[in-house]
């Protein structure tokens, strides 16, 4: 019995063997990838569909602002005296009704006048016509016509210098495109007194009538008779007249008489041009305004892109500057506390009590002449804009600065700056970033409001902004709503997207705040 028992106290050394002598003991590697703070936030952000869509819309609007001015034929300073208030027109989507035309109700005289424009050069300003409607009582006839806002400009008188005139003649001869059209007999009358003077090329039944509806001759069925009424001279170089003749268009009755294509005046020549062709000759491209034009003849598409560009640049620079100032100010305030905090808090209190409009106005009055309207606007936004971020940072500092890990770091000898930037600030980074992003829609709104009200005027510096475009369009809200519609839709889309995006960011950085407001 006793032999079988093992003496546990004296086990011989040989009986022992090292367990896993050649095995290296290490921590097992994680199967998953490590997820950092930002990666984590991004993962959460991706799940939020509406914010993701908002982010994509913002990106598209940003690209629109960035790219369009490079590829557009137009710029902000481009103005055209005749192509004003054109309707939006897209060649690609014209079947959707995006064709630069609109319905008008016109009288018989108006109908005649508009259809006569196209008749002369073989085009047509009137695209569709309804059956004539006879008004009861007065017996007047009205038409509903679908009028092309580009074609309805028709002809115009332009004054050219000798050189310009010769260049235009050369252009006509080399391309075979007719730009100049014969000048009608009623030139004097119509140029001076009729709004669309150059379009009255036909014989009128009643020349004393000086409105656009000057009566045209009609046949028994009431159909207009377009009978040309051009000035014809026997000798092309006769007297003070100088004419240009396009080969094959002599207009003469006997081979000796010619249409008069230009009239010499003191400075050069006055010619009657088909405006769409003249525009092509002058600018080198065909008029095509995707979003139409405003009352100054500016292209809304490119103006919108430039206005958006300004808004983006301003808003992004303001938020970056505010971020820097707010974080430094808030950190110092929150970290040191005590008297420093008291004094700094009073300063920011006073600044935040000044109404923003006062700040913006004073900066405009004092600085706009010296540094320009945009920088002074930037200063105005920066002056009070950082306060929100600073107070967020301050609150975060109050929350974290006395926690154990900060105390531990301090015990280990970390300097103030290290404690601020390495230990406390990263904790509040999410809130700060959200706050910084949410500054952007605010700045864009305020900027558009100030320019809308005319408190800040950017047009003198060759710029435009969404607010300026809105105030341009407001006078034409009832007649040409497209002028105001595009900037209004743009800024609404931008504001909605930025707010959604900001909310998504907040939820992503602070999942505990999900769904809460502010």
């Amino acid at each position: 019995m006793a032999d079988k028992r093992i003496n546990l106290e004296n086990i011989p050394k040989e009986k022992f063997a090292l367990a896993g002598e050649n095995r290296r003991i290490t921590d097992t590697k994680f199967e998953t990838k490590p997820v950092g703070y930002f990666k984590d936030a991004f993962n959460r952000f991706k799940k939020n569909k509406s914010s993701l869509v908002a982010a994509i819309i913002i990106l598209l609007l940003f690209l629109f602002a960035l790219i369009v001015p490079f590829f557009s034929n137009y710029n902000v300073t481009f103005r055209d005296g005749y192509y004003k208030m054109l309707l939006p027109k897209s060649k690609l989507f014209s079947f959707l009704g995006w064709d630069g035309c609109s319905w008008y109700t016109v009288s018989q005289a108006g109908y005649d006048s508009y259809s006569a424009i196209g008749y002369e050069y073989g085009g047509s300003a009137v695209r569709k016509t309804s059956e004539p409607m006879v008004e009861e009582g007065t017996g007047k006839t009205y038409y509903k016509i679908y009028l092309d806002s580009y074609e309805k400009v028709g002809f115009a008188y332009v004054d050219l210098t000798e050189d310009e005139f010769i260049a235009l003649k050369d252009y006509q001869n080399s391309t075979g495109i007719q730009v100049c059209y014969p000048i009608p007999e009623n030139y004097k009358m119509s140029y001076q007194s009729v709004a669309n003077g150059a379009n009255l090329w036909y014989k009128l039944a009643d020349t004393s009538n000086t409105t656009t509806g000057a009566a045209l001759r009609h046949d028994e069925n009431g159909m207009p008779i377009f009978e040309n009424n051009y000035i014809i001279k026997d000798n092309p170089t006769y007297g003070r007249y100088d004419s240009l003749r396009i080969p094959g268009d002599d207009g003469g009755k006997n081979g000796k008489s010619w249409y008069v294509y230009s009239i010499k005046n003191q400075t050069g020549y006055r010619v009657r041009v088909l405006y769409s062709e003249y525009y092509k000759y002058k600018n080198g491209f065909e008029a095509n305004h995707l979003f139409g034009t405003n009352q100054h003849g500016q292209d809304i598409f490119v103006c919108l892109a430039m206005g958006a560009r300004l808004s983006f640049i301003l808003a992004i620079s303001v938020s970056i500057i505010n971020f820097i100032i707010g974080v430094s100010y808030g950190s110092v305030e929150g970290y040191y506390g005590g008297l420093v905090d008291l004094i700094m808090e009073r300063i920011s209190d006073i600044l935040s009590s000044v109404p923003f409009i006062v700040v913006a106005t004073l900066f405009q009055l004092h600085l706009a002449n010296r540094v320009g309207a945009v920088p002074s606007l930037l200063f105005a936004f920066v002056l009070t804009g950082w306060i929100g971020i600073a107070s967020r940072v301050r609150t975060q500092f109050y929350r974290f600065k006395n926690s154990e890990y900060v105390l531990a770091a301090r015990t280990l000898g970390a300097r103030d700056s290290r404690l601020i930037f390495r230990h406390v600030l990263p904790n509040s980074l999410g809130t700060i970033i959200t706050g910084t992003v949410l500054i952007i829609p605010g700045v864009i709104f305020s900027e558009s409001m100030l320019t809308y009200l005319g408190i800040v005027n950017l047009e003198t510096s060759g710029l435009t902004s969404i607010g300026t475009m809105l105030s341009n369009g407001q006078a034409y809200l009832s007649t040409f709503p497209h002028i105001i519609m595009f900037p209004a839709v743009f800024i609404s889309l931008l504001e909605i997207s930025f707010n959604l995006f900001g909310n998504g960011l907040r939820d992503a950085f602070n999942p505990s705040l999900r769904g809460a407001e502010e």
Partner: protein
Amino acid sequence: MLKYVIKRILLMILTFIVIMTMCFVLIKMLPLPAVKEQGRDVQLVLQRREAMGYNKPIMTQYYLYWRHILLAGDFGVGEQMYVGQEVTKIMLTKIPYSIVVNLYSILIAIPIGLLLGIYAALKKNKWQDHFISTLVMLFYSVPSYVYAFLVQYILCFKTGWFPLTAASREVAGFFSWTMFRSMVPAVISLAFGTVAGLTRFTRAELSEVLTGDYLLLARTKGLTRNQAITRHAMRNAMVPILPMILGEFIGILGGSLIIENIFSIPGIGNLYVTSITVRDYNFFMADTFFYTLLGLVAGLVVDLSYGFIDPRIKMGQR
């Protein structure tokens, strides 16, 4: 409590004086508008400026400025607009327009906003809540002038139901039907933003309160859901909502810069914008005085009202 209130009021006055001093100095540093631009008797303008002390040193002017305001409520006379008329009088004729428009708008907006917010909070995460929250998000984000344009286009141009501009007080009294009708578009445009803000806020506050433990206790002790909500949740949710509404009521004095401009309401906001665009410094200063004071008082009243509404909140303690 009293000590805290006094401290806050004194701080407010200090802030106010600092701001006004900065504005005064900055405005006085600007060159006066040229006499010729005024297009009137040059001698007369110069005499008036002399009489108003424009040629004195800036410190003297500053002293005179405050003395005139404190003793006579006198902000000077119009230089570029309402030339020669007293600024105070003109402003007093403008304020009622702003008050009327804003009063109508918040009287409409507050019940709607509260009801929508409460409804959304009670139906939290159901389709009603999502619907209301989406609408609120839209109205909260879209700039106020955009729906002002929409309202103007639809109600004034397309349907022609309402006149384009506000009626004047000579034609109709401030609380007459004509005046109300002429202000409806502006009132609606203003109300959108207030409704959105209030709905958002109410929903957030109430839904936070609804998760509280004491609500569970209330249900446990036998109250119905409705009883628990009206007697316990609503009263607690109102603690932050009431000060906000109070702030809105003080804010009606200030009008709205942009809505008044769009609907041509001759209110105080419109006057402010005009004074800036035509560079009338006396009007600008008086308006700044008014707006800054309004903002400060509103902030103070809102802060202090927490203590009165909810006795549990001790003022001035951290």
